[in-house]
Each structure stands twice: as C-alpha cells, then as structure tokens.
C-alpha cells in the first residue's frame, strides 16, 4: 500500500476520534426525571410502553384520526381515549417544559408537533414559533 505509514495511523486516529464519545458515555446512566401529572395515576398505556412507543402511537393517531376519521383509541385494558395530542395528552401533561422538553432536550430531538398543535387546551393565546425555533427547529 502506498503511504501505509500515513494511512494506517490516520485510520486509527479517525476511529479513536469517533469512538471518544462512545467511550466517554460507556457505563454512564443518564437519568431524566420528567414531572408527572399530580392528579392522574395512569397514562393511556403503561409507563414503559409510553416511554418506548409514544412517538409511534402519536404517528398512528394522526394517520387514523386525520385520514380514516377514526378518533377513538382503545388501550390494552379496553379503556377508550380521544386521539388528540393537545386535548388528550397535553390536558394531563400541562407543562411541556417540565415533561416533554426534559427528555427531548437530553436526547437532542426537536419534534415539530408544537409548530401547530397547542400546548394545552387551556391556553389563552397562540404561542408564536420564534420562542421555540431556538430549541433546534427542524
């Protein structure tokens, strides 16, 4: 190989560089503590399902509600809920900053749901995007 004495150390250096963050975080457990609603015990599904799948559930909700006009969700226990981000999710989780944002900011995702969906069904005025675009936008 031409220039092996440059290329091989180069590759090793490159690999070392990209694995620095992996090594740095290895074994570390990052803990996120979103604030749970005080007046409610149960979410629509159990906490683990919500943690793992809330994005899939929301994606299914929007397709089923908007495209199929099917707006009632039946959970694993047979309980019924209205498929609505603002009117169902956000009416319990009334403080986005203390619930949604804590995780989203830690893992570095900036979902753009709130560009259109309101933060709570009790909101008085629409909240312009400017305040939120700093959070990362999309």
């Amino acid at each position, binding site marked *: 190989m031409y220039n092996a004495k440059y290329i091989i150390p180069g590759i090793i250096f490159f690999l070392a560089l990209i694995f620095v963050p992996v090594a740095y975080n290895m074994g570390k457990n990052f803990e996120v503590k979103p604030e749970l609603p005080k007046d409610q015990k149960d979410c629509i599904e159990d906490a683990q399902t919500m943690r793992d799948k809330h994005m899939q559930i929301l994606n299914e909700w929007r397709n089923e509600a908007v495209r199929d006009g099917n707006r009632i969700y039946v959970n694993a226990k047979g309980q019924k809920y209205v498929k609505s981000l603002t009117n169902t999710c956000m009416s319990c989780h*009334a403080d986005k900053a203390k619930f949604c944002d804590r995780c989203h900011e830690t893992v570095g995702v900036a979902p753009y749901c709130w560009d259109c969906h*309101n933060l*709570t069904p009790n909101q008085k005025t629409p909240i312009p995007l*400017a305040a939120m675009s700093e959070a990362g936008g999309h």
Partner: protein
Amino acid sequence: MKNTRREFLKLAAVSALGVGAGRLGFLGDAPAHAGALPTVANFEEGLKAKHWGMAIFSAKMTPELIEKCRTACHSEHNVPDIPGNKNIKWFWGASYEESFPTEHGHYLSEDVEHRQFPLLCNQCETPMCVKVCPTQATFQRPDGIVMMDFHRCIGCRYCMAGCPFGARSFNFQDPRPFIKHFNPQFPTRMRGVVEKCNFCAERLAVGKLPSCVEAAGGAIAFGDLADENSDVRKALREHFAIRRKPDAGTSPSVYYIL
C-alpha cells in the same frame, strides 16, 4: 430597622413578580373561547353520511350574515387575519360575476347583481386538487369530504393551481401572531402549508353541524346528498340551484339556490 425595611421591600418586589408571572401565564387560565373538551362519548355520536353536501339559500345571505358565518368558521379553525394579498380564507363573500363567471349573467336582476355570495371549498366530487397533490396531503374521504392532512403538505401549491375556485390559501408566514379569536382545541398551521375549509370534519365527528351552517340560522342546508330525506336534498328538490363553474368538471357538492 432600615435593614428590615429593605428586606420587606425586596420580599414584596419578589412576591409581586411572582403574582404577576402567575397572572401573565397562559397555563391554568381558562380561555375565553373554548367550551368543554369533546369526550369519547361525543365522538361515538359522530354524524355519518354517504356524501356530505350543502345548499345555500343565497337570497337570505346578506353581507352581515356572510361576515357572521366567516367569523364563526375562522374562530373555530384558528384562521389568521392577515391583511393584504397573503390573507387566508376558508369562507368569504364575492359578487355574482366572481362567483359564477361561466354563467355569463348579462342584464341580471338588480337583486342578484348586487348580491354577495358566500364562497368556500366546494368539496368537489372529482376534486382537481386531489388529483394534482403529489404527496396525497389532499385526499378525499369516502363520505366526500376533501380533507387536508397538514402533516404531509410540502407547500408545493399544485392544489392551488389545480383548484378552479381559488378555495385554497397558502401560509406565507407563521400564522400564529395573526390569530384574533383563538380556539386552543384546534391546531394552528405553520409557515409553508396550504389550508382550506374542511367541511368541519372535526365537528361532524362529535355530532355537530358545521360552524357556518349553525351561524347561518337556516340560510344554509347541510346533509347527506345520497339520502333523499336529508335537509339538503329537500332544499334542492324544492328550489332551483346552480353550482359554480360546472364546466370545470369537478362537480361541486355545494349548491347555490338563487
């Protein structure tokens, strides 16, 4: 003594700030507009039809009534009030010439010539906007409603070019600062998507008639075009009605009784 006064003032200032922030905050304050949240039971009572349609008694439609319907629709759906040519409209009024340009109505009766006609998306049976939409963001439901899935809209505006009725509006900017009557239960839109009347699909789903129909107080008949006993078919059976631009071939579901 001096010290305690300082402390007191500081404390007072901090608590005043706290109270102020509490009052300013939108959280916890009940909005002026919204009613109770729709429940699962409401959604179970949703209205169903084979093909939704509308018949407008145009002679009853004064400019004031059109304005009332427009306000009802626009407040319900968070339609922004943007002045100038970037405006967004779901429901609006126009002259006979603008509404029915293919009717060539020369020598019209004074009454019809000066009448304002309420216009909205015609919820066409063969909608051009659906045909040209590359992402299927605009689609037709089995009950005839031509809906928009704002999540999928990429803002290409083919539908605006395709619609022969100018029934669609494009959001050139963030609409939120221009929303005057805010309904927190209905989403707003973002910059770069197209919007239009959705025949109040979200109200039909909880068993209510569309906002404009309710506001019109009998001047708009609404119902299932496939059901001959429905209000809309009754109105069409008893009165002469025309549709807008029939030669565009889209077959509107909105009829105008002259």
